[in-house]
């Protein structure tokens, strides 16, 4: 097998073509090759959620997928999701409720929360906590994050 392969994919709406080492995972590719440093690396074995990105509409762990596996895919990172405006209600609610401290888990939390609200318009607190159970936050104790998501759900519930 070759050490590097050519891939073409769409990242945050833009076409990207690169030759990448086959062993490079997706989050390292996004950070190192494309300079999209909003996705973070926390554990490199899929347990912490810091590297959460969206691939072909699904929320995935950027550390559990090789970059070459994203060949032909549509990838969205926190930068793209933020600039598109689709996270604005969640971002505003997180800000007002102080639902972040160091911010390292926050991109993953936002993308995970947005996916939850897309599939369930008005989740209760327990459902929200379950949905976040793959995202580690050491700073907040989670309550403010749950509050912020609940606020957005109550405001937008049923309209999504």
């Amino acid at each position, binding site marked *: 097998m070759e050490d590097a392969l050519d891939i073409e994919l769409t990242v945050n709406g833009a076409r990207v073509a690169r030759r990448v080492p086959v062993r490079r995972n997706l989050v390292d590719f996004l950070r190192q090759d494309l300079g999209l440093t909003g996705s973070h690396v926390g554990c490199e074995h899929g347990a912490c959620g810091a590297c959460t990105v969206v691939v072909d509409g699904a929320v995935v762990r950027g550390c559990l997928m090789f970059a070459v596996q994203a060949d032909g895919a549509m990838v969205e990172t926190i*930068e793209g999701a933020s600039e598109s405006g689709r996270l604005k209600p969640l971002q505003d609610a997180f800000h007002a409720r102080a639902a972040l*401290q*160091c911010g390292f888990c926050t991109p993953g939390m936002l993308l995970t929360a947005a996916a939850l609200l897309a599939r369930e318009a008005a989740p209760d607190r327990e459902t929200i906590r379950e949905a976040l159970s793959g995202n580690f936050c*050491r*700073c907040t*104790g989670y309550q403010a994050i749950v509050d912020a998501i609940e606020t957005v759900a109550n405001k937008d519930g049923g309209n999504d």
Partner: protein
Amino acid sequence: MTDGSGLGAPVGIDTPSPRSPRLLAGRGRYTDDVAAARVAHAAYLRSPYAHARIVSIETSEARKAPGVVLVATGADIARHCRSWCGTHDLFPALVAAAQPALAVDRACWHGEPVVAVVAETRAEAEDAVELIVVEWEELPAVTDAETALSGPAIHEDLGGNIGFETTVEAGDVEKAFAAAHLIVEERFRFGRHTGVSLEPRTILADYNPAEDSLLVHQSHQTPHQQQDLFSRLLGIPEHKVRVVCPDVGGAFGLKHHLHGDEIAVCALSRMLGRPVKFVADRLESFLTDIHCRDHEITARMALTAEGDITAMAVEDLFLIGPYSQYPRSSVAEGNQIARLCGAPYRHKDYRAHLLMLYQNKNLIGHIRSVGHPLAAAVTDGLLDRAAGKLGRDPVELRRRNYLADDDFPLTSPGGIEFEKLSFHACLDRILEMMDRPALLAEQARLREEGVYRGIGLATFVELTAIGPEYYGGGGQHISAQEGCLVRLEPSGMVRCMTGVTDQGQGIDAGIQQVVASVLGVPTEDVRVESGDSEMSPYGGGSWGSRGAVLGGETALRAARTLRGNVLELAAALLQCDASALDLRDRNIIDAQSGQARMTLGELAATGHFKPYSFPKDLQPALAVVEHYASRDRLFLAGNGIQASYLEVDPETGFVDLLGHWVVHDAGRLLNPLLVKEQVRGGVVQGIGGVLFEECLYSPEGQMQNGTFADYLVPMAAEMPDIEVDHIETPTATSELGTKGAGEAGTAGAMGAVLNAINDALMPFDARIYETPCTPDRILRALGKIA
């Protein structure tokens, strides 16, 4: 606020952190995000043994590997970086061995860095590490207290494994115990855990040989401390060392220490003359990030028949790894336990004996709430035990024994000065919040149905905002003085640079509020920058619940000096007395009528661009620097209480957290929103320590659980909602009146949960005093498994 005290709104108002918008947009800038041309990447070969002699190191294959630019052993690094020794002059009996950045000749813990490889990519560096062959001769490992006391000395020249021993004593303990109606005694075991910041330790060092300068970006809490360490240990003039701490992805104390694999990166950059980066991976984090706890505490409490606590005696065996951490030393956790057991209660006779021992495990240092949670858990654990034996209500027993408002100020039997603590007010408030009668009724009803719920309380005392006498007197180069620069820009906008740092606590917001309040501008007009040893006024960074107390007070002083300058300049222009003017809503106003005379921007622009408008002897000084250090106090004591309501499943040993309450007294609150979130986060970190988190070592000293799959941390689904409220007893030692807040959540959570578990186990006459309270330990306490 118009009286010039500068303490009105926005001080005291809920204000989100000014850092949040960029972090929410994915535009934070953490150390690993910082770009550097020609950067190379370091990876380490680490000791697979707890204790072993290095017979030989063969690196020739690694040097030839693709992308490799440098392979450096401990001896190579030692030629560029001095070793250090974690002593403390206030504890002259503390003996410690010199610690090198990388192991030289001998490794003393599993994970100690041994050989560094630098390559063009991290992956290539890791590949080359695999090609290094080290011949090891395994040595006997000291892993528990018994072996530490009876076995061979880890460091021969220390003559044994006792690093420090002390006795804190007040009154006549023997007499008090002899006269006691009731003595309760328990043995507590607090497992070692660690900080687990989500962003791992990260450093980017860029040495410039052309000017012998070093620029370091580091995920760290204390840029000036690092500047001093890098300068002294690497031999680079201090004014040519610049340490920048950009956004930091969680710190919790683990990032205010010196780690060998970090300073070695500076040496590697110097050897190569190009930037070198190191990011600890998660396994490296678990193996080598500073650990905490690891105490075995046997404690006794003496009481009268009426339920008055008369004495406490505490024996603490504290195991700290093979070295005393640098630069603070490892003594504080043991010392603070020895001084804080029994602190909330009125008693005169006290003795605590601390034995600090070396062992072949990772180093123990200072992580969020140093010793406080253990002192609280031990004290209130014994109190609950006594209440059970006396058939008394544990709340009533607390109330009976608490130091009362008119007992203050006092020096505790542990030798700590308490200015004014609010035990009774905190207890009254938490009982209201939790509706204890309803919980007791529910608990009793459910016990009939075979459901076992428990209610636990833990009163805590915390030592915050350490004064300069502690580390200054200890011989450490750790600033307890803070500096703050406030600068008025020509437009009337304000820049502020502070020596305290923000790793998510939100101290930037607190300082913004103080400055905005004094200068009469909205908070968004004030930009706070920190974390740069070259640009910020010298200061200590953020640790030990000091940011608001010291950084806030310094900002108040700097803003007030600037305010004085502004009013003096405006008075000259407006031909009136400065005392007739005030600042409000971006305007210089007439203090009497409130009428705007000119805008702050007009005054600022005049000062910067048309200084000839002022009398010749009046020089516009629109940037000021002020400093502040507390005097004549080692600590600023704060207090609070926490309560936990939970259910224990006696069949599985699982604990389900149902409710958690906190009442905390941090003096004046600058920003209640952010303080409460600090407390909540701290509670959950404390819950991690009492229920889940433990660095597990084999008897041979191998760490067994260095992944997130094996080392459990609190996740959203298991955590309860936490109700937080505050009592405000301002300290008179500063004008702001704030006390520390960042560690309070952690300080009481462990004791509250432990006591609640024991309350739930009461019907079984079972007790547990070992943390974390894992299901298997609970089942063992219940006698269900061996």
